[in-house]
């Protein structure tokens, strides 16, 4: 048996004997990715738990289990964890780390030690973030948006929360930098940009956003510090500041952050669709370039979060116009994926049904996003459950679902084992049904005027909240079932072999399963496109010892 990356590792400092220390100090991109996954999913479950708490409270009008202030703390905790600790860093940190270097035939990222340090910076950021929520007069209740002046004149720790965002932002910048250099410098010879797998394109576009948008958090932090400690009025109207400025700065970062989430997720979809259609992807260049253009336009649309804040009407029109132009490249990707399936040979394995399910849910998330891009309509729907349902469809039904798709897709690569597909598929259907029951009714409630962040509501809305409650229960049981299936797969599953899905990209051409410490035995020469199939079989075949083509 050859050694895998579970058996040996390089460490940032020295060569500790204990396995535990080897994990703590590891610089191996695959191990670091796994550690991110462990930490992030722990947070995810905490946030899911607080969400359930909210759903219980919302089961009926009036106060049931928790009072208003506790509810406000719950959605703050839920939002902060889900956004800042889980989904913004999520896919790049987990799959960007584990899979991207394998896909381009690299031995690791360009700066493995920095990668290790970044992981611990992320942990530090998480600690500060959680501390900021709990230190002070109880848990923060500002919502994940920390809008001034509310956040400035309650007893919550905005400065500390911003510091946390700053540290996490730093981790994000460093990850972005590391990935950019890796993608520029460490691609296997012959692999031009247009021969890269589309997931790498997604990570590449994301890395630029991480690098360029994140510094705005630093600016905001400095301004908030100047206000708090030197009394210079910036955001706080009682000092002569302008609270709307805070909203601008917040969204200048947080809107591109939405594309931080979705672009790598689209990358996962672009891997799965051709693999399970056994066919080259339709419109490779369009998909690659649309990622880049979404990343570009994405900087210029933050104002669509401020339609009712009292911004000038001209600015509103411009922001709305630009926002529609993010929708176009996104739509084109969808058609390209569907066209890939045309005349293919479609294997409905678990990753594929996750992918196809997400096409449905993300399409709903995207389309309802367009509703609220129409300024006039948004004047009615802003801050109602319509927008809450929209972003849950986009983030949970889009990004998180694609993350799950990726987990099913790369599970055999990472663990060398296969989960039971019958269980995994059942878990998908449960979650899909549960999710739609959970969030679809909220569009209706939103249209009828149910505002967000209300712990108590008019009896009129009870029916929607109740359906939603049952949906949440179904969804969460599916979620637990899925993780149980993974757990069983990892501990008891059959060995999967190196390429169980008949995929073409380089991460499936490993000398061992799971991969060894330094990945491919030799650096391959890439003179082929990423998704070349002929009659349903991968065209390119390698001798895994020499990495010479043998087809």
């Amino acid at each position, binding site marked *: 048996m050859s050694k895998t990356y579970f058996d040996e590792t390089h460490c940032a400092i020295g060569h500790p004997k204990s396995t535990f220390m080897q994990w703590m100090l590891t610089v191996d991109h695959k191990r670091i990715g796994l550690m991110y996954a462990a930490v992030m999913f722990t947070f995810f479950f905490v946030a899911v738990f607080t969400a359930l708490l909210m759903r219980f409270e919302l089961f009926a009008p009036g106060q049931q289990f928790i009072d208003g202030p506790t509810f406000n703390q719950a959605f703050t905790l839920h939002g902060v964890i889900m956004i800042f600790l889980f989904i913004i860093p999520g896919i790049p940190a987990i799959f960007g780390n584990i899979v991207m270097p394998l896909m381009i035939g690299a031995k690791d990222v360009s700066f493995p030690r920095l990668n290790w340090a970044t992981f611990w910076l992320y942990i530090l950021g998480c600690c500060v973030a959680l501390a900021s929520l709990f230190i002070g007069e109880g848990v923060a209740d500002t919502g994940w948006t920390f809008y001034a002046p509310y956040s400035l004149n309650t007893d919550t720790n905005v400065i500390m929360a911003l510091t946390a965002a700053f540290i996490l932002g730093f981790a994000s910048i460093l990850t972005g930098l590391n990935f950019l250099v890796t993608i520029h410098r460490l691609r296997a010879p012959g692999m031009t940009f247009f021969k890269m797998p589309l997931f790498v394109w997604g990570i590449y576009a994301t890395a630029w956003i991480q690098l360029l948008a994140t510094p705005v958090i630093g600016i905001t932090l400095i301004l908030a510090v100047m206000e708090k400690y030197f009394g210079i009025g910036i955001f706080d109207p009682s000092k002569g500041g302008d609270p709307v400025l805070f909203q601008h700065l917040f969204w200048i970062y947080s809107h591109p952050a939405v594309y931080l989430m979705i672009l790598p997720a689209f990358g996962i979809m672009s891997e799965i669709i051709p693999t399970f259609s056994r066919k080259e992807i339709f419109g*490779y260049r369009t998909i690659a370039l649309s990622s880049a253009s979404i990343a570009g336009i994405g900087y210029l649309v933050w104002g669509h979060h401020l339609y009712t*804040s009292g911004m000038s009407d001209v600015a509103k029109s411009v922001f*709305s116009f630009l926002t529609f132009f993010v929708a176009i490249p996104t739509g084109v990707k969808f058609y390209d994926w569907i*066209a890939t399936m045309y005349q*293919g040979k479609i294997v409905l394995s678990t990753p594929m049904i996750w992918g196809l399910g997400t096409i449905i849910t993300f399409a709903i998330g995207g389309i309802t996003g367009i509703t609220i891009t129409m300024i*006039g309509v948004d004047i009615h729907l802003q801050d109602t459950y319509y927008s809450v349902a929209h972003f849950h469809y986009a983030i949970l039904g889009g990004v998180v679902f694609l993350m799950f798709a990726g987990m099913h897709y790369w599970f055999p690569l990472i663990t060398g084992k296969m989960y039971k597909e019958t269980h995994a598929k059942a878990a998908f259907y449960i979650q899909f049904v549960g999710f739609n029951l959970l969030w679809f009714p909220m569009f209706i409630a939103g249209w009828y005027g149910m505002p967000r962040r209300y712990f108590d509501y008019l*009896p009129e809305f009870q029916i929607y909240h109740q359906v939603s409650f049952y949906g949440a229960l179904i969804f969460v049981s599916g979620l637990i079932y899925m993780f149980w299936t993974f757990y069983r797969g990892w501990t008891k599953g059959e060995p999967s072999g190196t390429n169980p899905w008949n995929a073409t990209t380089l991460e499936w051409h490993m000398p061992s399963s799971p991969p060894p410490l330094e990945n491919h035995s030799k650096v391959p020469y890439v003179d082929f496109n990423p998704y070349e199939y002929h009659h349903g079989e991968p065209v390119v075949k390698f001798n895994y010892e020499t990495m010479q083509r043998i087809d």
Partner: protein
Amino acid sequence: MSNKLEGFSTSASTFNADLDFAFWLHIWLSVGLFLSVVVPMIYFAWKYNANKVKNEDIGKVTHNTTLEILWTLIPVAIMMLFFYYGNTTMKMFRTMPAEAQSLVINVEGSKWKWKYTYPANASGHVHEVGGVYKKPVMNDDGSIKEHGTMGISALYVPKDTNIILKMTAPLSDVLHSYYIPAFRTKQDVVPGRETTLWFNANRVGSYDVECAEYCGADHAYMYSKVVVMEKADYEAWYNSNKGDTPKGDFPKDGKSLYASNGCASCHSIDSDTILVGPGLKGIGAKYDSEYLANALTNPDKDVPEGFYPGIMPTFKFSDEDLKNIVKYMETGK
């Protein structure tokens, strides 16, 4: 309190028809877009399912210029249509009518109530209405024992008139948002800034107002009501000098007044516990009615031991309201 947002489907403002049209146009076209993705997807997943397709039959298409142009340009056209309707409806909401032809009312949103100040009437009286919304009372099992009084703090406006709301919040307060779902409109209220909102309602009735920008503990209770009246009724009230609110089935008994004016957050009515002000248990035995009335209209005159002037706000009540609330303090009824 009714169980529904009052007036949501009545099409009561001049905005409704256009906004609802823009929304539904968007929804139906979007359903089309959605189906254009999902129907082929499901069809292909069935038609080209692995167990029906022989390896030799797998296609090789990776480009089709006509199709690609179509599925870029058609969505672009649809998006431009959406942009057009989004923009015209925005103009409709945001183009303020001339102030000379409108009734301008000042609105102040503060944690957690709305206050309306009218222009002075012919005899120089300034109507100020508004106040706190009374929470519903719950049984232990969560069912509602006593409905709240949404809208006791109503905004009274005449029918078929342009109403401009000039809104702000105190500097030390936070963001709020004035949202009238029945009229499909809302606008944030920003401390230190003046924002405006206008509407023109063409049906007599009352319409709920919600706070739509998160503002803390009682955000979910920051309701109010817009009451649209016949012009004549409105004028009669406006030109009178009664502080009394004109209309509505809002409770006017002492208990409700006590609740809706926020007394309960500073005074316990049935114990000696000191909240911000003294507990009021047995106060009727201590003082006469006149003293109690004075305590509300001129609170800084007689300050009880251990308290400071300037904390208890000065209240303006109509004679009848004053009588009711004093009676409530005296008798608990």
